[in-house]
C-alpha cells in the first residue's frame, strides 16, 4: 500500500496552512464565537451594548412569532428538499434513459445552477405576480384566486416553487453523475430480467445512489435554510403576515432593519444549533439507510 504523505517538514506545513487557518479563524470562527458572546447583550447599531444575560434567549423562548418562524423554516426546508429531489430525480432519470441527445437536455436542465437567487426571485415575482403575472389570468380561470400578496399559504407555495426551480440544476448535476456511475451491467441485467423502468429507478438506482441522495438532502437543507434569502427578500419580504418569514429572513430583519444585534445574534446561535442538529440527524439516518458500497 502506497501513501501520499511524503513530506514531513512541520514548519513548512504550518506556513502553507497559515492562510486558510487565519482566514478561517478570523472570519469564520471568531465571528461565530463573537455571535455567541453578543447574544448575551442588548446591542444595537450606534447605541452601545448592554449585558443582559440570557434575556435574548428568554425572549426567543417566549416568542410565538419566533416559534412560528422556526416551524415555518423547517416546513419550508422540508418542502424544498422533497420537492426539488423528487423533480430532479425524475428529470435525471428521464435524461439517463434517453439514448441520443442526452447532453443537450442535460445542459438545458442544469443551467439553473448558475441562476442567481435574486434573479430567480425577481423572475418569479414577475411571472407569478397576482396582478400582472403572465400565468395569473390562466390560473384564475381555473377558479383559483391568485392573491399571494395577501394570502400566506399561496405566498409560501410561490416562494417554494421558485426555490425548487432554482435548485433543480444543482441536484440534476449530482444525480446524473451518480446514475452515470451505476454500472451499466446492472441496468442490463435488469433489462434482461424484464424489470420495469419505475421498478428499476426505485429498487435499483435509488438505493445505489443513496449516498449522493444523502449528500443532496444535506445540501438542499442548507439551501432551504440559507440560500433562499434573496427570493424571500425580493418576493414577499417575509409576508404576508409572516407566512414566508423563514429564520434567515427573520434574522436579517432583526439585525438590519431593527438593528437589534444582540437579539439577532441569539437568533444566529439558535439557527446554527438547529441546522447543526438537523445535519447530525441526517448523517445518523444516512448511516442507517444509505448504501455505501463495499
Amino acid at each position, binding site marked *: 500500500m502506497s501513501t501520499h504523505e511524503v513530506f514531513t517538514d512541520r514548519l513548512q506545513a504550518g506556513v502553507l496552512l497559515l492562510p486558510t487557518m487565519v482566514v478561517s479563524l478570523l472570519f469564520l470562527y471568531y465571528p461565530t464565537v463573537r455571535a455567541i458572546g453578543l447574544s448575551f447583550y442588548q446591542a444595537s*447599531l450606534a447605541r452601545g451594548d448592554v449585558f443582559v444575560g440570557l434575556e435574548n434567549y428568554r425572549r426567543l423562548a417566549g416568542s410565538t412569532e419566533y416559534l412560528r418562524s422556526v416551524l415555518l423554516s423547517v416546513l419550508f426546508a422540508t418542502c424544498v428538499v422533497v420537492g426539488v429531489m423528487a423533480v430532479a430525480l425524475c428529470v435525471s432519470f428521464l435524461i439517463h434513459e434517453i439514448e441520443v441527445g442526452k447532453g443537450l437536455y442535460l445542459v438545458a436542465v442544469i443551467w439553473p445552477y448558475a441562476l442567481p437567487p435574486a434573479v430567480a426571485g425577481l423572475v418569479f415575482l414577475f411571472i407569478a*405576480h397576482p*396582478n*400582472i403575472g403572465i400565468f395569473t389570468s390562466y390560473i384564475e380561470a381555473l377558479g383559483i384566486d391568485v392573491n399571494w400578496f395577501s394570502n400566506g399559504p399561496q405566498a409560501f407555495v410561490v416562494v417554494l416553487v421558485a426555490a425548487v426551480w432554482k435548485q433543480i440544476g444543482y441536484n440534476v448535476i449530482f444525480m446524473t453523475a451518480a446514475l452515470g456511475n451505476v454500472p451499466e451491467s446492472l441496468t442490463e441485467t435488469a433489462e434482461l430480467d424484464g424489470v420495469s423502468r419505475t421498478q428499476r429507478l426505485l429498487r435499483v438506482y435509488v438505493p445505489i445512489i443513496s449516498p449522493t441522495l444523502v449528500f443532496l438532502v444535506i445540501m438542499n437543507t442548507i439551501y432551504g435554510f440559507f440560500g433562499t434569502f434573496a427570493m424571500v427578500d425580493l418576493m414577499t*419580504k417575509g409576508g404576508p403576515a409572516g407566512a414566508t418569514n423563514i429564520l434567515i429572513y427573520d434574522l436579517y430583519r432583526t439585525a438590519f432593519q431593527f438593528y437589534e444585534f444582540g437579539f439577532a445574534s441569539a437568533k444566529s446561535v439558535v439557527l446554527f444549533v438547529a441546522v447543526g442538529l438537523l445535519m447530525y440527524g441526517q448523517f445518523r439516518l444516512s448511516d442507517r439507510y444509505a448504501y455505501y458500497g463495499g
Partner: protein
Amino acid sequence: SSSSGASVRPVDEDSLTIWHAMGGTNGETLQGLVDQFQSETDIDANLVFQDSYEGVLTNTLSALDSGEVPDVFQIDSLFAQQVLDTDAVEPVENLLSDDYPVDDFLSNVTSFFTIDGTLTSMPFNNSNAILYYNRSAFEEAGLDPDSPPTTLEEVRSYSQTLVDEGVTDAGLTWPNHVWFVEHFYSVDGQTLLDAENGHAGQPTTMQTDNATARSLYEWWHEMADNGLFSNPGIEAWGEATSTFLTGQAAMLMTSTASVTGIRSGAEENGFEVDNAFYPTIDGDRTGPVIGGASWFVPSGLPQDRQDDIGSFLEFMGRPESQITWHKGTGYYPIRQTAVEQLENDGWFAENPMYRTAFDQLTQAENTPATKRMLIGPARQVQTTIQDMSVELFSGEVGVDEGLSELKSAVEDELDRYYS
C-alpha cells in the same frame, strides 16, 4: 463600539458626501441641484444613491457607529427619532448662518422637524399622500370624474361601480406602508400613538380602541374581500403605481411626489388622470401627516467642514432650489417665498395636480394628529403595523382581535426600546 465624537472623520476628505434615496428622475433632479451648488460654491459634493430610505438609515447608523461618516444624509421622517437617539447628529440649526430665514419655512413642515425648539434636520423633500384617479375609467363607469370620492364609503361605492361595470379589475390600490395608516388617522384627527405621536415624550401605546381604527380596518377588509382593493404588496410603491397605470385599478393612493411620473404614465397608457384629497374616514378632515425626508448632519466634524455643509443645506433650502425641486419631482415647496413665486408665475393654475397636495397641506389644521409619529423603534412599529394590516384586511383575524394583537405588538416594541 458606540460613537465618540473624537474619532469622527468624513468618508471622503476631499468632497462632501451626501447619501440619499432619490431614484429615477428625482435623483437626476437632485444631481442637477448639486451640480449647480458645486459650480456656485466651488465646494465638491458627491451624491451617493443608497437604494431606499431603509438603505440610507442602515448605512448611516453603521457609519455613525464606525465613525467614518457621510457629511449629509437624507433620512425618512419616519426614522428621525431613531437617528436622533444615536446622539451623534448635529442639529442643523447650528450650521445655518444666523440670518438664514428659518421662519420662511412652511410651519406644517418645520413643526415636525423642530424638536424641543431646535431645528434638528433640514427639511427638503416633503410630500403627503393623495388620491389619484382615472378620469377615463370613471366616465366609462358612469361616475362623475369631477367629483371624486371623499370618504371611505364613497371610495367603496365608486369602486363597486367600477368593478361591476367591468371597467377595472379593482377599484383602489395603494402600497401597504404605515404612512397610509398614519394618514387615515391624521385626516381623522387622531394620533396613532400616545404622547402626541411621540412628540411629547416616550409613547407607550397605540390607539386602536377607537372608531378610526375600526372603521378603517373594517372598510379595508371589506374592500379586499369584495375584490375592490388590489394589494400590490408590502412597501410596494412601484407595483401600486403599475397597477393603477395599467388600468387594473381606477384609483391609487400614493405620494404627491409621484405626480410627474403618473401624469406621463397615464398619457402613455392613454387615459386621463386627476387627483384629489386623501379620503376621510367619515367626512371630517383634519389634515395629512407630513411625509418625505430631511437632511441630517453628523456631529463632531471640524468647523470648516461644518461651514461647507451649512452652505450646502442653505443652498438646498433656498427658494430657487425648492422651485426647481418641486417642478422636477412633485414634492411640494417648503418655503413660503417659493410658494408665492409659483403662484405668481401661474404654475399652480397651469398644473392643478401639483396644487392638490399643496392645498391639502395648507388647508390642514396644525394639531398633534398631523405630526407624524416620532419614535425610536419606528422600523419595528412600521413592520408590525404593515404585517398586521395584511392579516386584518385579508380576514385572517377579525378586526377586534387583530386590533388588540396589533396594539399589544406595538406596545411590546415600544416597551422594549424605551425600557
